[in-house]
């Protein structure tokens, strides 16, 4: 198990390094000279040269990369071209918002999706299944932004149940924080909940008709034990895979959701940076997103081995 963990950690580190290279080169490959963009009115060769020297752009690429990595490891992602504030401090304010939104959305989606999926499989052919299937179809086909607008219209503007926009940091006022973020999280989680529901339902239908469930029934276990301990536990491996794959969609969904609800998160920061060609910010955002992917995938892999003992053994190099 320890060897498996070490091997996975090493693989993750390698992937992270590679994605750093790609991000670095990708930003350098963008059309346009950053020095030109920074120079503003004064485009004399001397001024451009001074800017290039200031930002280290006159150095050879490998050296630039080494310096970039060295600074990034220390948490220094440079200074925003647009605002002049350090990118790292922008990240520390934006990241918690997005992290909270995503984690909450995943939790809501997992609880709703797994619950509805199990219900739909167990109550096959009953109204409960039709309802769950219908809701899943809506969740899958209705885009986030429209659902978000509807929610603002009916739950915020008309009834005032939830604030329409804005954010309060978690540490400042946890209750108010939750009040602000729960609606965006639900909206962001709907698509994922629908996908989880459908996957759970089909995985449950499979395992409910499996031989080991027949064995569990033949042992005289209660339906609840048969469903949770035997059928659901075996279905979770499929569900975890799907959730892992869908997290990319969740991150891009977060960008849109934050924009609609005016949350000062990662998504809003990214959109602003792209419009303003704020290269250091884009670079940091892409790198952090890639890191998030890698870390999440690492945890998904870990979760596999917790759920399914067969993976633990195959993970050990024989």
């Amino acid at each position, binding site marked *: 198990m320890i060897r498996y963990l070490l091997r996975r950690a090493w693989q993750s580190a390698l992937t992270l390094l590679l994605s750093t290279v790609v991000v670095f080169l990708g930003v350098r490959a963008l059309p346009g000279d950053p020095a030109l963009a920074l120079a503003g009115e004064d485009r004399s060769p001397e001024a451009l040269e001074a800017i290039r020297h200031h930002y280290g752009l006159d150095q050879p690429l490998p050296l630039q990369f080494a310096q970039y990595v060295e600074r990034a490891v220390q948490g220094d992602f440079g200074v925003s071209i647009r605002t002049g504030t350090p990118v790292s401090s922008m990240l520390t304010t934006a990241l918690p918002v997005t992290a909270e939104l995503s984690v909450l959305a995943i939790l809501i989606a997992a609880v709703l999706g797994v619950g509805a999926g199990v219900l739909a499989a167990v109550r096959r052919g009953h109204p409960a299944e039709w309802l769950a299937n219908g809701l899943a179809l809506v969740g899958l086909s209705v885009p986030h932004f429209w659902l978000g607008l509807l929610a603002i219209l009916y739950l915020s503007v008309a009834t005032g149940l939830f604030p329409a926009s804005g954010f309060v940091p978690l540490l400042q006022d946890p209750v108010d924080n939750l009040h602000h973020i729960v609606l965006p999280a639900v909206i962001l989680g709907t698509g994922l909940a629908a996908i989880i529901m459908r996957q759970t339902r089909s995985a449950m239908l499979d395992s409910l008709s499996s*031989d*080991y469930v027949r064995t569990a029934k033949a042992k*005289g*276990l209660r339906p609840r034990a048969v469903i949770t301990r035997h059928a659901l536990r075996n279905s979770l491996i499929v569900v975890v895979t799907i959730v892992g794959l869908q997290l990319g969609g969740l991150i891009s969904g977060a960008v849109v959701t934050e924009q609609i609800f005016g949350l000062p998160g990662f998504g809003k920061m990214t959109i602003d940076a792209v419009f303003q060609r704020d290269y250091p910010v884009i670079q940091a955002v892409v790198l952090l997103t890639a890191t998030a992917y890698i870390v999440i995938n690492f945890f998904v892999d870990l979760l596999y081995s917790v759920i399914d003992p067969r993976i633990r053994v195959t993970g050990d190099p024989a």
Partner: protein
Amino acid sequence: MTTVERPGTASGLLGAPVLEIRDLSVSFTTEGGTVSAVHRVSLDLAPGEIVGMVGESGCGKSVTAMSIAGLLPSSARISGSVRLRGTELVGTRESVLRRVRGKEIAYIFQEPMTSLNPVLTVGRQIGEVLQVHERMSRPAARARAVELLSLVGIPSASKRVDNYPHQLSGGMRQRVMIAMAVACGPKVLVADEPTTALDVTVQAGILQVLRDLRDRLGTTILIITHDLGVIADVADRVVVMYAGRVVERAQVTDLFAHPLHRYTAGLLSASPTPGKHAGTARLQEIPGLVPVLSSQPDACTFADRCPAADSQCRDSAPPLEGVGTGTALGAKDHLAACWHPCPAPRTQPEETNL
């Protein structure tokens, strides 16, 4: 194969039956219409008896077995009666059946790989039965699981108890299934093709475990198989099923010595016997397939595949009765549902050494 007097035979037939199946019929409603899977099956199981049930695939053996403890899906329509020491099980509430399953009537299934839960340790899966029926604590159930594993002949059981099914061999897994089935000391053990997925050598071991259980714990065993060799090896009595009906019922020695029903005779000549088929003699197959019946006709369902069938066979269903009486080998508890039973001694050229 030499036949010895089995301890269960004599005592078994004298005791009151543990399980009485009367006129059990099962049909399924499918999208393609109704399918009659089992038709008016009657069978008594005496204490400590091993009864074999044979027939080709699709003869209704497994459906009969599953219906005993109400394990069929809700699409099944069941009529007739199954009594466990006098208590009716057909149509009984689920909560009552749950107390019977695993405790009074236990099952062993064909595929030990897929029949065990891949994500739980074998100790946990065995312990589960004890926790439910014997109200044992988890540690106590685990300790008992170790004992059960050694009872079914698993070496270093205290280590194996924490293994997952994929870490065990096929034969070991089937032993785990058996340990799980006998955990609460059931009166009746239903073994549905317990050795079909296993190597021949492993098969012998598993059958030995079943025999031991009967001898030591007095468990009644219903063993379902299409392998006549298994029947000859362990069973005291045999029930031959065809297209959902019992077509012949006899002591195992009587059946092998003198099959009455043409279907049984066909099955016997379709299975190889040591010595006989080593040379050039071809095995005889039964032409055709088991029919899928939407309803049970008033005719012999084997008529279409039977060499001896005539108009009587196609016009009325033969009752299961003691047609063997009066012949040299016929015993009084040897029944067959056939209008034209095989004459005794059997006319087929080779028929001895089984």
